[in-house]
């Protein structure tokens, strides 16, 4: 895939009547691990959902994996993996059953599903445990296993490190590096600078619905003050049929 | 005219309901167009 994975030019996306994304311009090359940095409510989640083809493009242009977001946003979805605050799993089903289901939606063979499960270390007794009984880290790894099984080429992760202990975070970072090595591209939205920073090849700031290239890599980025806009509903809530 | 109550009543209900609804629509129209500049009115 030669061209850029994500090309946004002044993209605007609206939650209800609030322009959560007010003109984001962003280009992501294949194989990158991009860190989207910014306070809560800056529009990070909306940006990820827009790239996953879940939100209509209100204004501006956008292409993901060669698909035009204005007209082909349903076609882009099978190639994208979005991991929000909720893992999108079935709590009553076991780890193995969940990964098998989500893999099957993308036509993965049982071999590929088994490989994904073992790669995320979800083996033995853990594989037959219902997701309801898993720890946050294990559930997060199950969701990642689903992404691997679905062979997603673009990973959009929203606060993936939230709720994980140090060991689980290291595993997560290893998985992301493996994914990019295998040709995937990863975009991580996080406001935890020290964790994600070490991982990212590039950092972009998201401020009040717009993107700014951070000055240099991790080091130079200075912590952003929380914009004092009180009326701003947080867009971190899951975007059902708002 | 016997049963006048029912008959006039039916007219009153029908025309009354239409009048109330028309009034509500016009009031809402006035509110909506109050701060809408002349050009933005698609029907003018």
């Amino acid at each position, binding site marked *: 895939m030669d061209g850029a994975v994500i090309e946004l030019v002044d993209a*605007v996306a*609206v939650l*209800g*009547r*609030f*322009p959560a994304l*007010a*003109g984001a311009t962003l280009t992501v090359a294949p194989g990158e691990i991009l860190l989207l940095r910014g306070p809560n409510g800056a529009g990070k989640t909306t940006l990820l959902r827009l790239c996953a083809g879940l939100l*209509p493009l*209100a204004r501006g242009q956008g292409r993901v994996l060669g698909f035009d977001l204005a007209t082909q946003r349903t076609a882009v979805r099978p190639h994208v993996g979005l991991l929000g605050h909720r893992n999108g799993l079935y709590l009553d089903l076991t780890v193995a059953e969940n990964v098998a289901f989500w893999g099957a939606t993308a036509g993965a063979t049982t071999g590929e599903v088994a490989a994904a499960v073992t790669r995320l270390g979800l083996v033995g007794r853990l594989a037959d445990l219902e997701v309801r009984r898993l720890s946050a880290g294990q559930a997060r790894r199950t969701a990642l296993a689903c992404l691997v099984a679905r062979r997603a080429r673009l990973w959009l992760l929203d606060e993936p490190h939230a709720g994980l202990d140090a060991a689980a975070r290291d595993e997560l970072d290893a998985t992301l590096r493996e994914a990019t090595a295998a040709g995937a591209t990863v975009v991580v939205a996080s406001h935890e600078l020290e964790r994600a920073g070490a991982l990212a090849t590039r950092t972009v700031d998201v*401020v*009040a*619905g*717009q993107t*700014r290239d951070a000055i240099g890599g991790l080091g130079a980025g200075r912590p*952003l*003050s929380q*914009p004092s*806009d009180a009326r701003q509903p947080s867009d971190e809530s899951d975007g059902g*049929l*708002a | *005219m*016997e*049963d*006048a109550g*029912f*008959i*006039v*009543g*039916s*007219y009153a*209900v*029908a*025309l009354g*309901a*239409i009048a109330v*609804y*028309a009034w509500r*629509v*016009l009031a*809402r*129209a*006035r509110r*909506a*167009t*109050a*701060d*809408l500049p*002349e050009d*933005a*009115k*698609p*029907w*003018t």
Partner: protein
Amino acid sequence: MTTPSTGTRATRALGGSALGGVGWLLAFGLGFSPSDRNQAESVRILYVHVPSAWLAYLAFVVTAVASGVYLFSKRHALGWDRLAGASAEVGVLFMGITLVTGMLWGRLTWGVFWEWDARLTTTAFLFVTYIGYLAVRRLGGTHEQRARRSAVIALLAVLEIPLVHWSVRLWRSLHQEATVLRPDGEVKMDGLMLFSLFVGIVAFTLLYVWLVIHRQRTMAAEDALEDRGLDAALAARRAEATTVEVG
């Protein structure tokens, strides 16, 4: 335009003629037309009941057609969605009037307010279905989402009408009650009575068109306001970014 409103010279003329129609309806319906041989005065209610029923059905046909055009036309013009919404709202109003006047008429003719007659039952069913449609229209989301969702529900409602009518008619045929008179249609009308009915239909049609035009324009104005609101919110959002930068 001094007072802000959705009115234009055309709608004022239309409004005037609608009021004229109502005046004629009152004059003929209550005054000049004779009483019926066997139903006596209650036939006058029909001059309101029948037109409102026909206009309600027309309104729902307009909603269905407009929804179809919105969904299947390439341009997806929101104007059609607004027409569908406005017509449905006026349709529910007229359907409500049809039911109430139908019950008043039933009270005088059959001595009972509600009669599980095929026509009245279908009308009541349509009334509830389109109240559901209006509830769906208020679900929020962008204008396009609202339009698409409402259009689908409107077409499903149209799919439902023949089914309900068929099953209700079949159901009523089991209990063939021997009422001499059935509401409208079967009631023989001639001369002045037929003219009064005609006046009723003309008056209600004018009212329907006038109401739909104003309702649709109000919706257009509100949508335009929202879009302008979006620009304002966008500007404010962008301004926010600069203040953070400076701060």
